[in-house]
């Protein structure tokens, strides 16, 4: 098939998704088992293991004290279109109450149940009861209505990790090209890592869709620059330098290129879904607060979780040096522009974008190949990390406002 034929067909491509009572359809029909404190993690994990089904997944928050950011993140996962049912497992005395979370799921029209280990009588009775509920629920989920979906219905998030010189030349370039197509088709694309946009404020603000978006981008950029200056640490590491990147500005451009070229509709905060389609910047940097909660990007899975919290059906992880992680809730597609990395880790890496470096393929053709991979994944084909059973998640303590916070919370109403 010629690339012209493939491109014409993109609007026509469709697959069967899962209809939800409220909100957008999903591409997976997962059962989330959520622990609400570290003390209930073991029991929740055991329920997932006993269920023995690839659609049953564990997520949770370790902390016992209250953190709005973490609660909002758990709620966003409960509401996520890829989730069909929710079982929350608490110890009984923590701030995040399993019953509240189950109530959220019920209001969303999802199958839901909750348990408190203290009330159920300890490890064994809770595991037995929870496992039985999950098995029954999996049967009921077989009747979830199937609905036709296309690219216009997709939300896709992208981040990079373990970057080398190929990330900014091939991996992120192909994602940017694909994002342009996705946005043109009416879909939604989210990119993040504002701390990896240092030096590019003019370029970002210049791409704002409207004056409000420009204001949000300007504030968010300045916040990230303040953050980096104050800790004397930019998002560039010894491995990046050794690999040939000389400055944060150079790494930034390689990272921001994954956003493609379309206008930026505005800044998303973690756990806040985009208001409409188009391209959005996700700000995962902590907001200024008297307790200074959180580090901006503790690891790759935190970044993926942030994107998923905004409703991403699928997440891209662009890497040069290679990675093996997947994610709970949304399939992760791992892309590399480094052919050696792809060959060395072929069971883990999904997509080899290196042919554009050697003139073998145009960026446009490569982006269409990525579109085909995305459509296959959306239609149910497991990604490499899904095949291997990777279901990582990471939810830290953090402080963040739900809207772009022009005023510091710690400044009060002076």
């Amino acid at each position, binding site marked *: 098939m010629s690339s012209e034929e493939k491109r014409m067909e993109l609007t026509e491509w469709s697959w069967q998704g899962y209809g939800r009572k409220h909100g957008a359809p999903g591409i997976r029909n997962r059962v989330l088992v959520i622990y609400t404190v570290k003390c209930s993690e073991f029991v929740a994990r055991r329920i997932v293991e006993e269920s023995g089904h690839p659609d049953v997944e564990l997520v949770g928050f370790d902390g016992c004290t209250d953190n709005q950011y973490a609660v909002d993140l758990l709620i966003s996962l409960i509401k996520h279109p890829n989730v069909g049912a929710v079982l929350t497992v608490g110890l009984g005395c923590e701030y995040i109450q399993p019953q509240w979370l189950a109530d959220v799921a019920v209001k969303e029209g999802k199958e839901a149940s909750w348990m408190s280990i203290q009330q159920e009588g300890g490890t064994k009775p809770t595991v037995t009861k929870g496992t039985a509920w999950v098995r029954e629920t999996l049967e009921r989920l077989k009747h979830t209505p199937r609905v036709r979906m296309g690219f216009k219905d997709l939300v896709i998030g992208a981040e990079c990790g373990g970057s080398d010189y190929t990330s900014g030349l091939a991996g992120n370039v192909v994602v940017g090209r694909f994002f342009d197509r996705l946005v043109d088709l009416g879909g939604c694309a989210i990119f993040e890592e504002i701390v990896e946009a240092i030096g590019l404020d003019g370029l970002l603000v210049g791409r704002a869709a409207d004056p409000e978006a420009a204001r949000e981008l300007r504030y968010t950029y300045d916040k990230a*620059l303040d953050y980096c200056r104050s800790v004397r640490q*930019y998002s560039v590491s010894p491995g990046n*330098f050794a690999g040939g990147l000389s400055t944060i500005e150079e790494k930034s451009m390689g990272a921001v290129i994954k956003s493609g070229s379309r206008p930026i509709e505005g800044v998303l905060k973690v756990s806040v879904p985009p208001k409409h389609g188009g391209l959005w910047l996700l700000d995962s940097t902590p907001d200024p607060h008297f307790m200074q909660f959180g580090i901006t990007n503790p690891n790759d899975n935190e970044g993926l979780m942030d994107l998923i919290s905004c409703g991403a059906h699928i997440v891209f992880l662009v890497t040069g040096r290679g990675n093996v992680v997947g994610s709970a809730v949304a399939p992760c597609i791992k892309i590399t522009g480094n052919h050696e990395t792809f060959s060395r880790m072929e069971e883990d890496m999904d997509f080899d974008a290196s042919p554009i470096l050697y003139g073998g393929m145009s960026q446009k053709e490569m982006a269409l190949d990525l579109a085909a991979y995305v459509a296959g994944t959306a239609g149910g084909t497991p990604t490499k990390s899904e095949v291997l059973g990777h279901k990582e998640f990471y939810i830290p303590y953090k402080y963040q406002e739900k809207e772009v916070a022009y005023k510091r919370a710690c400044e009060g109403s002076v």
Partner: protein
Amino acid sequence: MEKEIKAFQIDLGDNVATALAGIKAGQEAGLTGDHGEESIKAATDIPAGHKIALKDIGAGGHIVKYGVVIGRATADIPKGSWVHLHVMQSIYDERSSHLDVRTGAPKDTKYE
């Protein structure tokens, strides 16, 4: 003789290209991407993934890649030579030129 493709130029306005494999001093490297010249002769060894100057860049001049400024030259950089921490620095990150040129490891912090 057809030259093997060795370096990738992203934007026509760039004054550096990225070596897709190691280039030896004296070697003529073919260019790919959005390139002006067909090739560039290496004046020094260029490690894989590192930058080669496509023209003479004077001290204080901008280093341009992706069509944007990615830093400033801290010394005169002759055409064809290796462009990295030893001859350029970030406009933002004051630590970048204090890092080891080969490993990128910080030299301004002692960890005991």
